[in-house]
């Protein structure tokens, strides 16, 4: 007997009798003989609870985790403090062992939590409508491109090269599926999207202009300046924004964005090798019925009590099939709950305070590092939030440096040369509220010593 399987031999016998057969095999008689798998599956052997824990702990301990190493790595995934209340709430199995809320009468908890999540996202982004989540920020960005193409009936997506390289890669895959064209716009020596290049590429065939702010280099983009160029050409402005920055930074919706997307990982979601996180997707009102994914709406029951349901489902795959606005079905609801609890805990003041802490520490780190004659801040002309780039001396072996920093107890920054040949020898660093001044100083000293 296995602890997850209840059936005794007596149960089996009684059930077979009810069915009217002698052996379970008869239930599989319709599988052609040649298709039947013979023998034992060549998969790993069964382990008892203690042995499995030992194996898994062994694997886990071979990874350098944030508890044991001070991380200065960002580039889309961040080491933020996870308020302890979050795990207690998302560990309630009424939430995490539920399916999609198809039966609203017994799913009011999940539905209300998602309604509140949508409300939080609208408030932070300054948009009218948000959905119940996407797989991650990058797939949300690709879906935004798809929405824009559908809404404008145009086929060109104009995307800044300062958007996360993986998001652009997913956008390209998505565009190939939908037969859309992706055109990239360069960046200035200050690390911001080159508006002149943008203007030259946006014309009447552009469905969307896609920016990220803070961008992949950590620099803030001038969304308000870019917006008119998109809109005058009849294109939608898509902005990808780290939601943690929106406690301090202006809501993209107030700067002219038509669609705002991003990844909620900074809002209390464990890094977990980059997933599961939770993409958010918010639009201005005219695009509401073109949104991908689940949306929760408020309504009333037969006695007039407030309640919540999945709504506007005429957009979705289970109703519209091949005419749906997207194929998404399962989303990242539990992580949306994580983000909602985070925002409930931080609240109005906390989102400003955490922003200040991040800005303060990152700027202290940037100044501290810039003191070294070996280091330069290549994008000093741009403003940043908690992430910035530093240029290392020519010929620095980035892989070796990463290993050496590990030896010293640090998870170092991201090598921008991986994606941008012109930024060879440039490292992207993130400094969150988790980093102490002492760690920043020690990191700066260690780094300088290694160069």
């Amino acid at each position: 007997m296995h602890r997850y399987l209840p059936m005794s031999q007596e149960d089996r016998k009684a059930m077979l009798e009810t069915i009217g057969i002698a052996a379970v095999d008869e239930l599989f008689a319709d599988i052609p003989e040649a298709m039947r798998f013979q023998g034992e599956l060549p998969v790993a052997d069964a382990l008892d609870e203690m042995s499995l824990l030992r194996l898994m702990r062994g694997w886990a301990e071979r990874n350098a985790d944030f508890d044991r190493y001070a991380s200065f790595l960002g580039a889309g995934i961040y080491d933020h403090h996870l308020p302890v209340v979050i795990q207690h709430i998302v560990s309630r199995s009424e939430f995490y062992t539920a399916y999609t809320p198809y039966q609203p009468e017994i799913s009011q908890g999940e539905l209300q939590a998602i309604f509140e999540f949508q409300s939080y996202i609208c408030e932070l982004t300054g948009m009218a409508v948000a959905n119940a989540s996407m797989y991650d920020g990058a797939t949300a960005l690709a879906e935004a491109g798809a929405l824009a193409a559908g809404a404008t009936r145009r086929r060109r997506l104009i995307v800044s090269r300062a958007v996360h390289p993986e998001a652009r890669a997913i956008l390209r895959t998505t565009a190939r599926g939908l037969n859309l064209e992706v055109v990239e716009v360069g960046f200035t020596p200050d690390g911001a999207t080159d508006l002149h290049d943008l203007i030259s590429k946006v014309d009447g065939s552009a469905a969307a202009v896609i920016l990220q702010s803070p961008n992949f280099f950590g620099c803030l983009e001038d969304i308000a300046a870019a917006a008119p160029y998109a809109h005058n050409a009849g294109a939608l402005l898509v902005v990808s924004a780290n939601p943690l920055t929106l406690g301090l930074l202006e809501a993209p919706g107030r700067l002219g964005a038509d669609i705002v997307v991003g990844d909620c990982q900074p809002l209390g979601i464990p890094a977990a090798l980059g997933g599961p996180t939770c993409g958010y997707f918010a639009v201005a009102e005219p695009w509401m019925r073109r949104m991908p994914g689940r949306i929760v709406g408020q309504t009333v029951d037969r006695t007039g009590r407030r309640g919540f349901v999945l709504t506007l489902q005429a957009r979705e795959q289970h109703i519209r099939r091949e005419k749906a606005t997207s194929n998404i079905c399962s989303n990242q609801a539990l992580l949306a709950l994580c983000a909602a609890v985070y925002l409930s805990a931080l609240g109005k003041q906390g989102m400003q305070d955490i922003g200040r802490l991040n800005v303060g520490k990152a700027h202290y780190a940037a100044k501290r590092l810039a003191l070294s004659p070996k280091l330069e801040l290549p994008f000093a002309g741009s403003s940043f939030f908690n992430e910035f780039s530093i240029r290392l001396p020519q010929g620095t072996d980035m892989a070796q440096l990463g290993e050496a920093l590990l030896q010293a107890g640090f998870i170092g920054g991201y090598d921008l040369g991986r994606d941008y040949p012109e930024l060879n020898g440039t490292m992207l660093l993130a400094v969150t509220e988790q980093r102490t001044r002492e760690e920043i100083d020690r990191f700066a000293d260690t780094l300088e010593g290694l160069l």
Partner: protein
Amino acid sequence: MIHPSDPAAETASRQPVPQPAAASEGKALIFELSRPGRVAYSLPPSDVPDFDLDETLPARFRRQTPAALPEVYEVDVIRHYTALSRRNFGIDNGFYPLGSCTMKYNPKLNEDIARLPGFAKIHPYQPESSLQGAFELLYSLQRDLAALTGMDQITLQPAAGAHGEWTGLMMIRAYHESRGERRTKVIIPDSAHGTNPASATVAGFETVTIRSDARGLVDLDALRAAIGPDTAALMLTNPNTLGLFEEHIVEIADIVHEAGGLLYYDGANANAIIGITRPGDMGFDVVHLNLHKTMSTPHGGGGPGAGPVGVKDRLLPFLPAPLIAQRTDGRFYLDTGSPQSIGRVKSFFGNFGILVRACAYMRTLGPSGLRQVSEDAVLNANYMLARLTPYFDVPHPRFCKHEFVLSGNRQKKHGVRTLDIAKRLLDFGYHPPTIYFPLNVEECIMIEPTETESKETLDRFIDTLIAIAEEVEINPDIVKNAPYTTVVSRLDEALAARKPVLNCSCG
């Protein structure tokens, strides 16, 4: 819970179960709990020198007014979400026979393992040397899933089943294009999940829907009529959504392959076949699995899931990047993929936390345990079908696999719809089955018990359904007005769609 199988239940089952008053009160939104000045967080004072925010972040970048987030204290947060959780139903609350969703027990051990700091607090861009444990886990999962499906390689990137479908179809498209062929159509049976045609569209294909035959299987004549030189693939769920094994699978595979098309396996129903038959051996070229179904990972109230995709050798060059590979010295590394790769489909490494849970699950059961899972799932479903057959119309009266379909047509004659029966089940503490799907069965009720439910649980549920079928004949209004015991009664879905209120507009 009052239950019809109890001796005194005959009348009790026709009464709503009384509910404590507190549970039926409305629940305030967290925004409505807000009081100026309250906080539920604890951040350290800054240990770096003071700075001028105006100088650091110019005003044009900053919010003019703070976001109108609630101001609550920690007890509010905990009580609010605890109250919400009590208004929600998960597998840990009770039986959840939601067809095609495989709502099996979600082992607690897997939750603990996924929360180990070495899995939960690691960054995808750390040096390879500092992620060897994570990579070994992923590598072993790739290998075990390949063995289980009979495929040659697995990508763990897709975040969900539909995401896997799209990934697989993009590979199929790239495969045909690499051979200089333009194949624009994907054939899909009418019993398929809606994600199949939707995924075909976003992968740039046109969908051709083919009807099922009288036995609920792919109509071979319809397939032959639909197939042609423009066929890119046939997408098939096997067993299909009626819970029936496509017994002509060899012939189907031949028809598709002879026309130059590929065969796609939708793994939504893989819980019926583990260790019994493998998609790779049935002739499928591309397979996705739903780890949040077959491999017990929790569905999280809608997600996250994981939808790994397996392929045969000829599709290897098109796999999305990156794969986890092993060097001759035993160390693991990231293979960034071939130049023919379809590119990226998901950030980083897919839903790693879900992959960890799935790996733990597979190693809890091992080869014979995994086969036992499918045998028991199928036995449970057939037992339920046998017991319910006298009381409901059974459109396809023969052995099923892990799930089966009833029709509420007999009950409809009394003016009671399948929806009403589902709502009445709520009063007895059950999550109802999937209803009105698949689309090719009228008043459809689709039941999937899974292997983690005991005979007693099945019997109680069956007795309840039989009691409801009796209610339908004696007093249909009781069923039509259900539920009585939930925190809200039936909700006005038309109003929600007609006058959308999609956020609380608290700002």
